[in-house]
């Protein structure tokens, strides 16, 4: 069965989702990521969805699950490259992916994860302090 490749850059893991995510593939990805984060002691996970033209509630939940798993294993997650049409649709759908950090592209995402690892001020987008 195909798997989504996970790249390592330092203590960070990079995942690029380019294919239509079906159930088994999504579950496999969560599984693989959990293992890699733990093995590596990874401090951050970057998920690039710039190639995804459709993000439905299933993919939304998958991303949320990955972020939650990573958090438990003490790693930050950033989702980057969401397309405008996808963002507009998700808002209409009612999914705002709370608690998931997002960035415009891989560069900015990596910058954030590196700073987060060293305790610096974030570059990714998060909820403003009240």
């Amino acid at each position: 069965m195909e798997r989504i490749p996970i790249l390592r850059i330092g203590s960070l893991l990079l995942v690029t989702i380019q294919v239509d995510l079906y159930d088994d593939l999504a579950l496999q990805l969560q599984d693989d990521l959990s293992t890699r984060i733990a093995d590596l002691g990874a401090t951050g996970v970057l998920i690039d969805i710039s190639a995804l033209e459709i993000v439905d509630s299933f993919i939304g939940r998958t991303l949320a699950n990955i972020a939650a798993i990573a958090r438990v294993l003490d790693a930050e997650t950033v989702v980057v490259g969401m397309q405008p049409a996808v963002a507009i649709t998700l808002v209409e759908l009612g999914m705002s992916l709370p608690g998931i950090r997002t960035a415009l592209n891989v560069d900015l995402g990596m910058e954030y994860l590196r700073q987060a690892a060293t305790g610096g001020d974030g570059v990714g987008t998060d909820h403003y302090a009240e």
Partner: protein
Amino acid sequence: METVSEQIITRSEILPIRTQIDLVHVRQRVRTWLSEERFTLIDQTKIVTAASELARNALEHGGGGQMEMSLLAVGARKGIRLKFSDQGPGIADIAMALKDGYTTAGGMGLGLSGSKRLMSEFDIQSSPGAGTVVTVTRWK
């Protein structure tokens, strides 16, 4: 005197919804039709996403079913209609199911209400033991 234009179905296709791979096919096929009929990119995204949600509902809550896809024409206006039907347990309280974030054991959550927001027309027929039929339409 001209009579009111009636709805004409210019194209029609039925896709099975039995496995998770069928969900992928549904997305791809709807996308292909929409791109052939030149719907805008944003509309395409909304419609395919709605189709994905409703197809998934039919699979996970309805035990599988089918999607009937039709292209409509009313005068010069074009639209796409998607009809999702399953022979599943049906929905007892439709109003409740349409509330955002509603959950029953893994629930339809945003699928139903979200799809309603993404499309121009939404209709649902369902009752316990009689399966479910959700019909959505989006006009160009």
